[in-house]
């Protein structure tokens, strides 16, 4: 891989999603931090500018929409990928307006998210 490893944050209040995404993305050559609490994730983005954030939309506490708004405000070059079970057109449209890179409806295939992350990486690396 060219250049430094990209850092990815995964936020989902269902632990299974984090547990499964972490190794799958690590094997693609990314550094991955996972969070099941949106408050913890909020704190973390104050410390680190992630290259890519993968987040659920609907969670307890601060929801994904707040996180992505905050992340984009702090670091506009961060690409956000939204994963959610509430796959309605409206939420998708709303998240796109906030500058979301892509939107994946749960349940999804590992290969699907890997592909989207790869596209985000290509964009970040200006390929």
């Amino acid at each position: 891989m060219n250049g430094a490893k990209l850092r990815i944050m995964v936020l989902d209040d269902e632990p299974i999603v984090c547990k499964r995404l972490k190794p799958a993305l690590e094997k693609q050559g990314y550094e991955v931090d996972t969070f099941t609490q949106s408050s913890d994730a909020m704190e973390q983005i104050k410390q680190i500018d992630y290259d890519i954030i993968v987040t659920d939309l609907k969670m307890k506490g601060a929801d994904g929409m707040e996180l992505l708004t905050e992340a984009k405000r702090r670091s506009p070059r961060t690409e956000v990928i939204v994963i959610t079970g509430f796959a309605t057109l409206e939420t998708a449209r709303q998240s796109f307006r906030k500058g979301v890179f892509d939107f994946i409806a749960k349940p999804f295939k590992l290969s699907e998210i890997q592909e989207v992350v790869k596209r985000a990486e290509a964009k970040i690396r200006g390929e």
Partner: protein
Amino acid sequence: MWSGINKLWNRIFSRKRDVIAFPQIFEQFQTLLEYHQKAMELITDLGEKSGGEYIFDRKYLFDSVHELQDLLLRMIKALNLISSNRYYDLYPTLDRIFLPLEAELRGRLSLAQEPYVIKLADARLDNQELIGGKAGALVQIIHRLRIPAPDGFVITNRAYHRFLEYNDLADRIHSWIEAWATGKEELRKAAGQIRYGLLAGIVPQDLAREIKQHAQRGAAFWAVRSSAYGEDGDLSFAGLHESVLNVPSEQIIEAYKKVVASLYSPEALVYRRKTGMIGEEGAMSVLCNEMVASKASGVVQSVHLRNGVPDSLAVYAAFGLGRTVVEGRGLIDRFIIERKPPNQISSKDIARKESLIIPLPGGGERETRVAEENQLQPAISNETIRMLVKWALALERYFKRPQEIEWAVDDAGRCWLLQSRRLIVPEIADESREDICESCSTYPVLIEGHGSVAHAGVGSGIVHVVNSNDDMDNFQDGAVLVTRFTAPWLAQVAPMASAIIAERGSVAGHLATIAREFRVPTLVGVEDATKVLHNGMEVTLDTHSGIVYAGRVRELIRYELVQSMVFEESPEFRLLRRILKRVAPLHLIDPQSPDFTAGGCVSAHDMIRFIHEKAVMELIDLPTFLKRFKGAKVWTLASSIPIDLKILDIGGGIDPDVTGSKIAIEQIQCLPLKALWAGVSLPDTWDTEPIDVDFKGLMSSIGKNWDAGPGGLGTTGVNLVVINRIYMNLHLHLGYHFNLIDARMDDEPQHNHIYFRFVGGVTDVTRRSRRAQLLARILSHYHFNVAVKGDLVIGRLLHLPKEEIHRRLGLLGILIGFTRQLDIQLRTDRDTSQFVEMFFDRHAKFIEESLAKRPGGENEWRQAENYGVG
């Protein structure tokens, strides 16, 4: 006859039935088919999710189950509409199947319906909530991996709750734990109080009776072990809970209490708090196994570091009972074996074993001396070592974690598995922190980005290509199964494979199901895999990246053993599998069986099958009640073929410009009927030559004279077809047999079907049965799913594309003519074969042309797998 039927009809059915017009019923039927399709898709989707390629959460499971329930409810409503409410008993059936599902989803295991004690042989898989982690693993080892373990039973969580309730302990335990957790009470005191309470508790009569019954049915002595929820899974609890060995049957109750009390040892409490498990889920099942009077016993570790490299297994062995090895008493033998095939023994350290532990006749055990001349003998043979290594690697493949296995060899030399748990190897955990992506990139890639994941994971081994039954001989444990097909017989070797790569097959197919059951990482639909992968090559499959690497990617294998989560063990996957068990299996296969009732439905799939079958039957029965069509326009087909066919168009089946009451086939717009007629009207099909009737056949035919009128070679009864543009429901009464063809052909294959039913005949039942056999053979050849019962033949096809339905209807058209009077000619069984051949000979050209695209040869496997059965 008609008046008789009408009377019967009026007696059986309410007047309401008169009111519902056929088009309405037909519409309900079409809707029902749509629900049917959706429900089947949902079940297939759920099955696919269990393969690990998808990421899903509880919500998905919740939604899917509710959607399925909703679809079934709609199907029941539709069927009752069609049948004038004759299937009301499906409503309670729906509840019976979905209420337990609801309980599963809400995480409220309805313990009330579960037993206190359950035999290992009867315990369900994926049910750790009831029997705990250790027993849960043992059940999988026995049922899936088929490794011999001593008989036994589990005293379940329900028993534990009963015990607490009877002694009023639940609240007291809770307050002691709370006192400790909030720092009001010190650990040892809190733990001591709880344990005292449990040990002094009385096991209630009903529970004690059941435990004793099970104990008395088995051996004289028992190993009584803890099996807490989560134990031996990702949380090992190793050594925290008590095991009591060599317990006489009559003392099991005391041993039970001892083991239960160990759930609240100070160490166990601290451990549970550290792992965030303090609280409700502290429940203890207890596993009781018959003691093996062991000649030798010990431990295998599936990973052993040799010079810092984890490329070996270690077997530790001693004479007598297992405590010697497990507790590190005295000197023991050590065997180091290479992990890579053929698993050579690389070193043997035979210790001077001066003492051994033996069981005492009245229970308990004692240490005794080993005879001088035996002290330097190895405790086990090479053969036993090989067996243990095979088990250890199979267990590691299945549980996806390094394993530590306790085993014993009995006096007869048989090897038994006592328990297997996760082995923690800190060194490989450290090592695998290295950059996994970089390490993998140094290995050549043989295949990338092809195929679909049937079961996710990483597997490595030597390629063994299987293309026929013979190739399966010598299939080694841990080999990579590479195949062009996904034939059912692969089930024999699939569980032994470390990975499976198939050129064909689908993620909903048979092989995928087996792969999931045995947790074998599997890619299907990898075109040309056999061109790249050859016998003897060492490869590594990683489904997460969709890559087959050349060589053994050690870094990746280690990463998987330590870092990657074992998705199969996660609560979500286990929940999914429990749901699937209540949803997916099909028990109601034979519509003629007495169990084919609403009450006989065990799974959601059974209900779907039952409703579909009954709906088809209702529709099929309709033309019998011709009264329904009083006043409707009935057309007559003008044709040189001597079938007086009446046509009822329910919309779009006939050219709207036609006038009069007779129509030609060209004016018919119904696709299935046109397709069928293409076969019927082939020059050779309608053989009008007189048939050579022998005396027996003639007598038999004369003897029959229901209300058939002229009978014989002409036409009899009513020949009626109900059509629209894409649907046909045809009833023929030719000669003395009834033939029904119900077909739908449209652009979307998933809604298409052909239902073929044939019964009766002019001759004795033997000849009629011969004709049934002949039909069955011809239909099977064209992938119909055929059932024969006496002279009744039912053939079904589902989900084929329009053109495939078209071709097969053509074939049925030919069959109508061909079989018209065939029973008369089928004098011997040999005639059947001759006529089958004659059929193919005579109609070979048409069949060849119209079935030209029929995939043959190797593709038949795919067909057999993918064509549904109604």
